[in-house]
């Protein structure tokens, strides 16, 4: 791994932290926030690719785990990893990997449509695929009910984030082509 990859990994971990500075919106019925950080896996995967993206997300979560208050609303510490809602956080890890992998494959013909579909499938689908069953298992809530509850609360916002994420990744590919997702790490 080149020095540049380490720097990119750290940079996007910092980006994740900065996304956490946007005030979260608590959903009282679920106890889970609507947060700008759910855009993180989309941007990180889409820009860094799978390998570096994964490491970046893990680095961010490591800093949260050791007690830095970098999750939205200034939360941190190990407590956030052992709650009934923590599945979404593990979902971010998987999502970064999936979005990253897809972005690397699609990079030469990435456009808004393919990018948006990637964000929806990877950045929303995968996150929910981990987060919702976890929540339902931990809370005893029926899977369908948990999904309907969280879908109603989060999906409108998450679709907007997917749109923004896709537009950003596509524009960035044109404005700063020096970093084809994932390719830089392989080149060096």
């Amino acid at each position, binding site marked *: 791994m080149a020095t540049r990859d380490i720097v990119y990994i750290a940079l996007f971990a910092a980006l994740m932290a900065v996304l956490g500075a946007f005030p979260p919106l608590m959903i009282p019925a679920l106890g889970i926030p609507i947060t700008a950080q759910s855009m993180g896996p989309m941007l990180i995967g889409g820009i860094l690719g799978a390998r570096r993206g994964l490491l970046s997300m893990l680095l961010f979560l490591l800093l949260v785990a050791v007690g830095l208050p970098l999750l939205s609303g200034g939360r941190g510490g190990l407590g956030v990893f052992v709650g009934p809602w923590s599945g979404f956080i593990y979902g971010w890890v998987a999502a970064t990997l999936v979005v990253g992998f897809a972005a690397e494959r699609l990079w030469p013909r990435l456009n808004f449509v393919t990018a948006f579909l990637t964000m929806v499938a990877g950045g929303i689908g995968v996150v929910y695929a981990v987060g919702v069953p976890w929540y339902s298992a931990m809370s005893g809530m029926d899977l369908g009910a948990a999904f309907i509850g969280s879908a109603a609360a989060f999906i409108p916002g998450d679709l907007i984030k997917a749109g923004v994420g896709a537009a950003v990744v596509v*524009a960035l590919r*044109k*404005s*700063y*082509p020096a970093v084809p997702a994932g390719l830089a790490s392989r080149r060096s």
Partner: protein
Amino acid sequence: MIELRNVTLHRGERRVLDGLSLSLAEPRIGILGANGSGKSSFARLLNGLLLPTSGHVTVDGIDTRDDVKAARRRVGFLFQNPDNQIVHPTVAEDIAFGLKPRRLPKPAVAAAVSAILARVGLAGSEERLIHELSGGERQLVALAGVLVMEPAHLVLDEPTTLLDLRNRRRIAAAVADFPGQVILVTHDLDLVESFDRVIVFEAGHVVVDDRSGPAVHAYRALCR
């Protein structure tokens, strides 16, 4: 004319500007001062990017606190780093960015873009990719993006620090041609040589306010 009456500005805990009263009427005004003396904060007051903590800033009679949009339309602003203000990947798209709210027909936008590119010496660069331009060319594109909006005043915050002598002259020439008022913040004393008035800041106060020659002389003495 831009006027400041009794302006004080706090940023965070700090009082960054303190009791300023100035009438900026001369066509060419230079701003000098040490790092952290408040030059950029001052410049940002002039188009309402910052609002005074107390006191008033008026642009041609419009108080920035009353109608920041109207004030801002009259004041173009060029920053040090062109990368901050370039939004789109191609030259023409980027220059057109500021025109969008005017909802002009496409051919009118294209004509305005081409005209302004010619004025900054980049005729025919419409379709070039910004990231393939040199630093000097990028700064000229950024300037074109400001000029295309036809402001009455132009405020520039250290617009030439990243540039070589030749590009510096190109920017200086494009600025010299500007028909309205120019207020230029810089560390480059050559740039303000021919200016009508030069103001020197120190720790949030005006310490020199004079014609160019004596002001630059006083500034050099201050920096010893």
